[in-house]
């Protein structure tokens, strides 16, 4: 379980304590085991910063961030990140990219090989094992990124607008694929997005953030039944939640939240 209490983060403070920008202020929330939480908010609200703090990539100034009771001090084996611009090593083929995390953590060549084959099948990239990233479409590259994250068998998947760089059609396909994978083997997921459709479609709960300095405005339950199908997009519950999100976001963007 991820637990965040009173978290705040400032950027760019000088040595004398002045001049900083408060990115996050007093963030309070929890993510339960195997829950899929999506985070949405206006641009600049600090969602990516929050994710990187949970991932252990950047330090935080005040508050408490714990995973199953242990405080976060850096990256750890129970978490894996999926990046918006894929972050694939351009010089390595698909197979090597997928096994990267495993290799770092010391797995043997055979383990890596086996895992990689399993995951390639899982994300549907058979036949592309030896290809270089530049030979793949955006959607395929992100599937490699996803496979790489899943390869290390994390309890928590941290996804930073993973489909943001893709066109709409590819995005929808990948959303469906992600849901299928998640249904098959549930993990805790924290998923950042700009898209209200995506937030409601994927999440068990949606966390709405305020503009900078980012705070948790509200945690909204998404009581739609699982497994989610495209049909759900037409249901009144879906549209209600989406409207609610948009009303709030619009108000926040124009400054009168």
């Amino acid at each position: 379980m991820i637990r965040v209490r009173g978290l705040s983060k400032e950027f760019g403070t000088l040595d004398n304590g002045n001049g900083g920008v408060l990115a996050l202020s007093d963030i309070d929330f929890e993510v339960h085991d195997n829950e899929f939480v999506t985070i949405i908010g206006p641009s600049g609200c600090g969602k990516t910063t929050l994710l990187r703090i949970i991932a252990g990539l950047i330090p935080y100034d005040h508050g408490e961030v714990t995973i199953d009771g242990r405080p976060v001090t850096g990256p750890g084996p129970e978490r894996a990140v999926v990046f918006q611009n894929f972050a694939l090593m351009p010089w390595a083929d698909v197979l090597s990219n997928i096994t990267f995390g495993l290799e770092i953590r010391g797995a043997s060549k055979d383990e890596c090989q086996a895992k990689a084959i399993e995951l390639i099948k899982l994300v549907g990239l058979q036949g592309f094992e030896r290809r270089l990233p530049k030979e793949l479409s955006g959607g395929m590259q992100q599937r490699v990124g996803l496979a790489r994250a899943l390869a290390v068998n994390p309890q928590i998947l941290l996804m930073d607008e993973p489909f943001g760089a893709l066109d709409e059609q590819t995005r929808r396909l990948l959303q469906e694929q992600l849901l299928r994978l998640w249904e098959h083997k549930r993990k805790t997921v924290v998923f950042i997005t700009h898209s209200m459709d995506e937030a409601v479609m994927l999440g068990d709960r949606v966390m709405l953030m305020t503009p900078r300095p980012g705070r948790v405005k509200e945690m909204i339950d998404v009581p739609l039944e699982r497994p989610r199908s495209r049909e759900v997009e037409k249901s009144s519950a879906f549209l209600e939640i989406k409207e609610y999100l948009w009303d709030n976001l619009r108000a926040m963007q124009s400054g009168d939240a």
Partner: protein
Amino acid sequence: MTQETVTAAKSIAMRGIAWPRGLRRFAGNGALEILALAGGALVWEALGWGLRLQWLPPFSKVMEALLQFVYRGVILANLGSSLQALVLGFSLSLVLGLIVGALMGRYRVVEKALDIYVHALFVCPSIVFAPIFFAVFGLSDASRIAIIVVYAMFVMVINTSTAIRTVDPSLVEMARSFGCRERQIFFRILLPASLPLVFAGIRLGMGRAVKGMINGEMLIAFVGLGALAQRYGAQFDAAKVFAIAMVVLIIGLLCNALVQILDNRLTRWAD
């Protein structure tokens, strides 16, 4: 120009005239360039015979001198000495260039401490150090090698440091997210990612090294190809001097091709 505009321009150039298809394909692949070179050689030949200037021998005479060199082994004798200095000088500048560049790229302290000096030494004409090296090392191989190092090193320092500094930060972050330690990040991410730019620097450095070799020889040493050029110049034998210039040109092109092959092999993944 994008790839599409280049091909578009090519097809427009060809369209106005009904070239037969075979000729069109030939023209597309560098025929015009070859024709231009051949044309130049012909003009040179004509002017050489026609004008009868001491400094402009006909192209054929130059070729003759070149072949004579090869046949009589003159080239080989002096080439050996030149190439030795080139190899030693280039290797030294490669090692120094890559190490200093890597340190500058990796550690901001080193970068800030050295950047103005590296930049200054890069832009100022390297030959200007020749009198200094002559004073320090005298008439020896060390002078020639030192000049080659000064010529070649700084472009490699700059390219290497830029290469490491401009590695996609999200790749570094990704590696860190999987628990990579600093050393792993350096060898698994920074090094491979910086390879294309580093190779560009090595290619440039190679060209500079050849220039340093010949420039240094013309000034300092009395051995090697540069010395030959001076000697033939003093004898007013223009054909032989041109021939030597061609030899140096060929050396430069070969070295460049060598680096290019290595580059292609190792950085096939870059676009």
